[in-house]
């Protein structure tokens, strides 16, 4: 078989594939009779209402000297790790606002950080293409710095996102600018499996975000610059379980819905979307013009514990609280007192759901929680 012949066949196959995809989309659309908001409205649901003290900024964590790029809560609720462009990770006591650790990193361009499930160690990664693990219990070196205990190297692009596999301190999933996601074994420092890359069903551009299913830790989702989100099974590295199209631009953030059957995405196109992993359908689009009548990219999203609320940070410093059922913005944290002065880059909900933490380019982190008085019945 000659090269020309092969090329021809390849072209033909690609065309067939595209046709099939189109047909699939059409069928999908014809079957899609409603979205979540439409159904909820028909059921007479009312949007969540917020009183003025129901969600207020009650802590400001100051101490970074550069833009904050990422944050993560511990599972035991009161510690936060944040990563900033000043090349430091800071571990905060969110309740007292004090810094527990300030870790100077060998490479200052850090893009992501994560707490291990036990809260004993931190993973971080960035433009050095290495995911570094820092054990918080290890002894400090002579400069009072915590040393990096393990380097997970092997990515050929920047590390955009990392998350520990729930209930395991030894496994970690990273997303990278080399278009792949990798499941790592931290004890050996080796790749367990690589998702995407050379395989056809992988992402075709930088992976920007990963999120592991909370109820089934074998399943995780990834969002990418190729405007798709993909669903992976860690046991089957060779191909993605499913690709989710719909966004028009980069998918900056993916986050699993608390029940594990859906996940949300936030995109450069200014919308958030909710996808169902069982049907592959897009359930809802969350899109609303901002006060300046423009669309701003979504940088990060988070769900409340019940899933009723979706928090989305935007590049203009807005942080919308969406009612996921009715697809309405019920609150804009950016319009409240003490809000951030610049782009919100990361969001995170405390493990018990009692507080939301936001990080911003204005170098601060803020904690938002119930600030009023609640009657105990």
């Amino acid at each position, binding site marked *: 078989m000659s090269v020309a012949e092969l090329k021809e066949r390849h072209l033909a196959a690609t065309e067939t594939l595209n046709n099939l995809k189109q047909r699939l989309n059409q069928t999908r659309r014809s079957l899609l009779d409603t979205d979540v908001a439409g159904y909820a409205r028909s059921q007479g649901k009312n949007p969540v*209402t917020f009183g*003025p003290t129901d969600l207020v900024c009650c802590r400001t964590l100051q101490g970074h000297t550069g833009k904050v790029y990422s944050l993560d809560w511990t599972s035991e609720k*009161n510690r936060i790790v944040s990563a900033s462009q000043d090349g430091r990770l800071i571990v905060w006591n969110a309740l007292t606002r004090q810094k527990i650790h300030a870790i100077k990193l060998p490479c200052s361009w850090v893009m992501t950080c994560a707490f291990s499930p036990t809260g004993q160690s931190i993973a971080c990664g960035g433009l*050095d293409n290495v995911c570094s693990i820092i054990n918080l219990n290890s002894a400090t070196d002579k400069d009072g710095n915590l040393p990096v205990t393990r380097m997970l190297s092997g990515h050929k692009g920047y590390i955009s996102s990392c998350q520990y596999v729930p209930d395991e301190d030894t496994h970690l999933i990273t997303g990278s600018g080399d278009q792949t996601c990798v499941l790592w074994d931290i004890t050996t420092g080796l790749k367990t499996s690589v998702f995407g890359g050379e395989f056809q069903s992988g992402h075709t551009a930088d992976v920007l975000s990963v999120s592991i299913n909370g109820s089934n830790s074998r399943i995780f989702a990834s969002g990418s610059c190729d405007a798709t989100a993909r669903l992976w099974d860690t046991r089957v590295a060779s191909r993605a379980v499913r690709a989710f199209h719909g966004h028009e631009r980069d998918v900056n953030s993916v986050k699993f819905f608390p029940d594990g059957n859906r996940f949300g995405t936030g995109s450069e196109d200014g919308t958030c979307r909710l996808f169902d992993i069982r049907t592959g359908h897009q359930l809802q689009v969350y899109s609303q013009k901002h006060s300046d009548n423009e669309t701003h990219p979504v940088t990060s999203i988070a769900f409340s514990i019940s899933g009723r609320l979706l928090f989305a940070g935007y590049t203009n410093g807005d942080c919308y609280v969406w009612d996921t059922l009715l697809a309405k913005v019920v609150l804009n944290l950016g319009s409240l007192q*003490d809000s951030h002065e610049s782009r919100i880059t990361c969001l995170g909900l405390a493990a*018990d759901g*009692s507080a939301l933490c936001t990080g911003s380019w204005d170098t601060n982190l803020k904690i938002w929680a119930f600030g009023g008085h609640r*009657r105990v019945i």
Partner: protein
Amino acid sequence: MPAPANCSRIFSKELKPHVTEPASSPASVRTFDRSSNAGSGDGKTTVSPMSVIAARSNDAGDFSSEEHSHELSKLHGVKESSDFNDSNWAFTDSLLSLDYESSRDSSAKNADFNNEGKSMCDVKGAPIVTLNFNNLDNVDGDGNENDNEALVEEFSVTKRNKGLCYRCFKGSRFKEKEVCLVCSAKYCGNCVLEAMGSMPEGRKCVDCIGYPIDESKRESLGKCSRMLRRLLNELEIRQIMKAERFCEVNQLPPEYICVNGKPLSFEELVTLQNCATPPKKLKPGSYWYDKVSGLWGEEGQKPCRIISPHLNVGGPIKPDASNGNTQVYINGREITKVELRMLQLAGVQCAGNPHFWVNEDGSYQEEGQKNTRGNIWGKSGTKLVCALLSLPVPSKCSILCGERTSSPVSKRMPDYLEHGIVQKLLLVGFGGSGMSTIFKQAKILYKDTPFSKDERESIKLTIQTNVYSYIGLLLEGRERFEEESLLNIKKNQSDVLDSTGTISKKKTIYSIGTRLKAFSDWLLRTMASGKLDAIFPAATREYAPLIEEMWSNAAVQATYKRRREIETLPSVASYFLERVVEILRADYEPSDLDILYAEGVTSSNGLACVEFSFPPSAPEETVDTMGLHDSFVRYQLITAHARGIGENCKWLEMLEDVGMVIFCVALSDYDQFSTEGKGCVTNKMLASRKLFETIVTHPTFEEMDFLLILNKLDQFEEKIKQVPLTRCEWFDDFHPVISRQCSSNNKNSSSNNASLAQLASHHIAVKFKRLYSSITSRKLYVSLVKGLEPDSVDATLKYAKEILKWNQERPNFSLSDNSMYSTEDSSFSFTC
């Protein structure tokens, strides 16, 4: 100060329900909202959104809940006590600022506070007031200029309730309190964490963050009180104290220190504090400093210390610096009576009001005379006398270290400067433009140990793997050549003879033996499957003899001679292949030059950076203050992979704090082609241009200066002789005018060619400059570099430094001055 705003803002708990409060002050807005909310919202059945967020609420946790339930509970008529275990995230932050106000004007109302049994402060229930500095200014009437001083002043007025906590107005004089380093506000143990927040600069109230500390409290910097120790854990304390001591705001402001009547600059203060024997416990004030002998004292006082001499700080010493009246002078300063007595006891002849010239080692001579008269410290009794008269004696190390301090490199950088003055240079370029060579060169040039042992080990493995892949490419070439020559033979023979079928077994000079053939096939297969990295560095020892045998094989050597025809073989390959046997030994250690030549050493990780400072150049240059400044500036050279720098690059914005972008282009690329993803072939020079345009137009680098490095000038000089520059379509219009005379007169062709290379490189530079100015209407700095030559790279990086320096100074020059510097060609340095 009975400001009108304060009247409506009352903080005590006897405050009646806020509904009655006028909604005029910013305070009342929220209060109003809340009370209305309390009236309508809370009691109803609508799902409180926070109950959605907080699935499990009421876990009254580890944190004392601070509810401000008084007003509300009165409204609701609910028992107070039940309201306490609600939320851990009680509202605190925005109240903080009001405390100052309250402490000022509401002391009278606080009288009956103690009858409240609550542990937490009632003020928390106060309306949410954000009292920012604007409000303060209004209250003060003026003070836009230095509201900080106004602040400090005001707080000194409020001494009347000094026994109380400034926040909860409780406690007594004897209760332990933490004091704000700026405004001296005192807080009791219950309030201090609320009032001081995350303490990013140590113990300061939230509103004092960013302001310099009260100098009288400098002594207590970094000394933790017992109270904080009780409240926070050890790690947290350590972080706070570290921040307190080393954050930049808390450092001694240089202008507070006058030396010989001249306030210090930042650099001078750093010099002073980092010399071998610095003045101890430097406080703001005026000092005199005798640069020759190192004597140091407060203005108008006798000397109190001998510090390192010859420091370039402050102005020249004045005769009346120590306010002496003895008419005896030391180094131009009239000395005090005590000093005179000391000199007399030390046996120095002081009759006739002499003027002495005293060196740092104590040797002295009379002014205007040549020979040394003696040494003040020579006598053993002198130091005892000094001790009795409480005069300073030189410390031992000041004499010992005298010479060493003069070199600024050996100075340790103060901690808070660590990330203070770092100038970042971003080095980018298309793949193969030699930017990693420049990066490595910089490392070798400016670092004492450019590569650590581990690094060298991994570099060794990289080099060895590279060599295997070069061999693979060579063998691939060999196969091709063999086929070609076989075909040729076949052709020739079929022309001459009729085919007999035995021809195919003929050997050519490119044929190898079966054993080598097997190895070659295997190697090529491994390469094709992309598993070379996995096998090779480990198996080096095993295959080394085989490689040795192969390298000496005539067929391989014949192929090597034709290496120019193997396009995929990089030009540096020959450097390594020549020494293949040596390199593949297990005990091979790469030299700096090897590392310089090696590919893929820095690119293994996407972004690499090296921090360095330029060694002080000529001594006369370091005399002026800029030179001094230089030695403190650290530079960070960052290389980033071009791959992924697209229009929507996610991380380029992280590099916005770089001072300059250095864009690297390989001159020799003009006839090279690269295949991009979709199989279209582009000229590498054009690809470079495209990347250049992308980066120049990227919003992150909008206002940034660009330095274009035209690299690989050496290869270019060679290549331009054979391949015309017009091979690249961008340079179509290159028609060098080479004077006939010149070429005919000058038989030495090499100089002629060099000038052609010069013309060509200038042409390329001009092309880039025009492109740049058409995009940004600014000037592009260009530098020609031979990446493999250290001097060339050194000169370029120094040129980059000069550009940065010039940019800092540029605002100091007026426009008219600018004309002096503005030249089209001055920005073009020919550094080779």
